[in-house]
């Protein structure tokens, strides 16, 4: 679409330019594969034997398990070498998140420690703070927690009421307030607490567990991830030495949000790992369970579910590793705060996309997984039951899916306004093109369909931006519509580019299935907001453009799904491409 080749590598740039190639799991090197194996062995040998007890309230078992994870090197992946870590790639931390995900609650303990717990220090700590705490966190001697949410505000984190006041001698800040839903609170040693200095300057503080004035609520009684500890953290006149201010005073939001960005793509990866687990359980069950004299895997409606699950996993997996590849490339040779800006903030849009996509793929897979198990899926004797309960939190934490949906187009618009992404130019050019449509048959239909979806989203967002200008934030439904189309574009494009490398087969089938449905969804969603954006003749011209841009031929989806299901049944789970 646009000639500048660098655009495709920028966050959000894919909307304007198709990348030539993307990073995929088939690009994993031997080291990554070896680390995947070690993580699996960790789950089998260390986690499985205590899984039942952890799940039934013995939360303190998280602590030795984390130490063991530390011994294996699993806690130091993103910690610099000079502080006892390994300083490995984001690809590695992501595959580990994916592999640990079937452990449910323990994966939350692990994620809260390694991502939101440890990364604030890695990216924003002073050398003294890093030297003091990071070696302990990398070894698992200490466990970390991240305290942003409060009883009265979660999504609106900047509305925090927790206050910090400098002591008269200037040596301490005195913190008062309550933090809610804090993962690892039951056993963490180090808490990153966000508070407002003098009720104004949003700032992060490093608070040690045994600081007087720090206390904890009872364990929350949760729907799922029961093996994780979640408690209220209460701060009453907690004296924090001034050396323990993390980052710049008044810039706490930079820490809070960037750390969440990392949390988000890892959550997406974890969700995909969980979804693969659910699909494996379901495919095996479907082959074994007999009804009406046949294994239920024989039935079309069961195959339909298996095919949909695999297709969505393929979408989530392709989008996740594409992004992680971009981040690793951008992080080459960078560290600390610079790395955050270059690699993590740059791909905040993609991180939100992966968070929403992954958590919704997982919810779909566990839901249909329970359905495939019938009554047995409703029994705690079967692992799919726990998978179902463990899944639900993913749409809520690390920014609810609503908040992330709003962020996706919101960030794109902001970058357009700042001139970082030439979206306005593209939208203007598109206007002309839409008025003089070409009816040539494209050489590559599926690529053209994805380009069309890009045009569609540019067109609708362009109209919305013109009409609502600065009030666009109040049109949440329109923003979420744009977000849904953007998610589908990013997923479908990632699937398609990967399938081409994989040489077609089931991967091409899954791409076709996903793209077909994405076009349908986009058409329905766009037509559903169009009358708010335009009137009369303009509306009618736009409506026919929407139909043209989402056009597709009738396709035998039954046959497509049956073929995909066969591959799922053969593989007894997600047909993982071989490198």
């Amino acid at each position, binding site marked *: 679409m646009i000639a500048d080749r660098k655009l495709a590598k920028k966050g959000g740039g894919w909307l304007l330019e198709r990348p030539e190639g993307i990073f995929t799991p088939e690009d994993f090197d031997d080291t990554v594969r*070896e680390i995947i*194996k070690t993580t699996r062995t960790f789950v089998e*040998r260390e986690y499985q034997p205590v899984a039942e007890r952890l799940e039934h309230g013995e939360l303190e078992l998280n602590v030795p398990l984390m130490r063991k994870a530390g011994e*294996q*090197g699993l806690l130091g992946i993103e910690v610099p070498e000079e502080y006892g870590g390994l300083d490995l790639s984001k690809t590695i931390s992501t595959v580990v998140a994916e592999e640990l995900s079937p452990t449910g609650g323990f994966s939350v303990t692990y994620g809260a420690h390694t991502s939101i717990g440890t990364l604030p220090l890695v990216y924003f700590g002073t050398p003294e703070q890093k030297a003091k705490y990071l070696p302990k966190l990398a070894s698992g001697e200490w466990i970390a927690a991240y305290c942003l949410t409060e009883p009265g505000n979660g999504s609106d984190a900047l509305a925090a009421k927790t206050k910090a006041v400098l002591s008269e001698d200037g040596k301490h800040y005195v913190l008062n307030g309550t933090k809610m839903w804090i993962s690892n609170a039951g056993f963490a040693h180090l808490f990153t607490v966000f508070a407002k200095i003098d009720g104004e300057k949003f700032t992060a503080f490093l608070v040690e567990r045994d600081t007087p004035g720090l206390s904890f609520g009872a364990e929350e009684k949760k729907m799922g991830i029961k093996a994780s500890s979640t408690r209220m953290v209460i701060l009453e006149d907690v004296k924090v030495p001034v050396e323990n201010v993390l980052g710049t005073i008044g810039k706490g939001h930079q820490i809070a949000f960037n750390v969440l960005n990392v949390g988000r793509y890892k959550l997406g990866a974890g969700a995909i790992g969980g979804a693969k687990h659910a699909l494996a359980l379901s495919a095996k069950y479907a082959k074994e369970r007999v009804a009406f004299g046949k294994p239920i895997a024989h039935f079309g409606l069961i195959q339909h579910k298996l095919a949909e699950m695999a297709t969505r996993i393929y979408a989530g997996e392709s989008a996740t590793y594409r992004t992680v590849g971009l981040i690793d490339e951008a992080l080459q040779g960078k560290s600390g705060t610079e790395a955050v800006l270059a690699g993590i903030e740059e791909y905040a849009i993609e991180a939100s996309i992966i968070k929403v996509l992954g958590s919704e793929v997982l919810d779909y897979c566990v839901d249909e997984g329970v359905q495939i198990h019938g009554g047995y899926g409703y029994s705690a004797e079967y692992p799919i039951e726990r998978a179902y309960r463990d899944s639900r939190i993913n749409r809520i934490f690390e920014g609810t899916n609503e908040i992330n949906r709003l962020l996706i187009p919101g960030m794109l618009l902001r970058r357009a306004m700042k001139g970082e992404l030439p979206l306005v130019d593209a939208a203007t050019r598109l206007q002309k093109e839409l008025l003089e449509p070409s009816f040539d048959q494209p050489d590559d239909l599926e690529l053209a369909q994805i380009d069309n979806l890009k045009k569609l989203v540019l067109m609708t967002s362009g109209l919305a931006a013109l009409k609502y200008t600065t009030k666009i934030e109040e049109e949440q439904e329109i923003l979420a519509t744009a977000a849904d189309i953007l998610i589908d574009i990013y997923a479908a494009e990632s699937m398609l580019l990967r399938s081409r490398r994989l040489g077609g087969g089931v991967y091409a089938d899954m791409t076709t299935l996903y793209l077909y449905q994405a076009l349908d969804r986009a058409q329905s969603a766009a037509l559903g907001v169009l009358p708010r954006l335009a009137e009369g003749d303009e509306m009618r011209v736009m409506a026919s453009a929407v139909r043209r841009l989402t056009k597709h031929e009738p396709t035998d989806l039954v046959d497509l799904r049956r073929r995909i299901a066969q591959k799922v049944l053969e593989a007894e789970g997600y047909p993982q491409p071989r490198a």
Partner: protein
Amino acid sequence: MKFVAVIRQVPDSESRLKIDAGRVDLSSATLILDQMDEYAVEEVIRLQEKHGGESVIVALGPERFEEAVRTALAMGADRAIHLVQEGYLDPITQAEALAEALRAEAPDVVLTGGQQADWDSQALGPAIAEALGWPVVTWTTALELEDGQARAKHDLDEGAEVVRVSLPAVFTTQQGLNEPRYPTLPGIMKAKKKEIRKIPISAASKVEVLEQSIQERSRLGKVLDGTKDPHAAASELIRLLHEEAKVI
């Protein structure tokens, strides 16, 4: 002292193998370090930890074996020698080629799996010993070195035996010899820098594989009707499990 583990890469016992034109098709199988060889790797690392010296991995097999060799290095062995040859070689031919490399290394102890998971053979260890003219202790469950000799416990069909053997000697592993560690992330990173010396060889197999097939284990599909007399059905189930399936 020098300790060598001879290792092989085999399909994971959990992966489902396909037969294609009378040949096992490994393209969709997960390939791993043979679990019986894992005991050997663990043991050479432990011997080195205790007695000092060097732990070395020796493998004979196609290029793809390198992954298993790296795993062994990631567990902690110092370096590796990989005799590279594609295609099938019978254990005796393998042992002859391995013996040549081993003689050059002149280790005190050679360990290898008590059994090779893929060929279901127990020949490799004894054949290596034979080719070297060294003593062999099979199915080893305990190994200790003292004054240039080894004290080893090894399994017999219905019991065990403790033997003393002069070094150098070959030992084959048995479950229980140790609890193999698995690679740590730092171990994996270090292994990338460890030496794997590749030596192409061209040995002629004395045995040629003509055809391979996979045993299909069909299920009995026996269903007991418990609607009329559940007690009788339960007793029958117990009898079948006890007498026929022999699982209880």
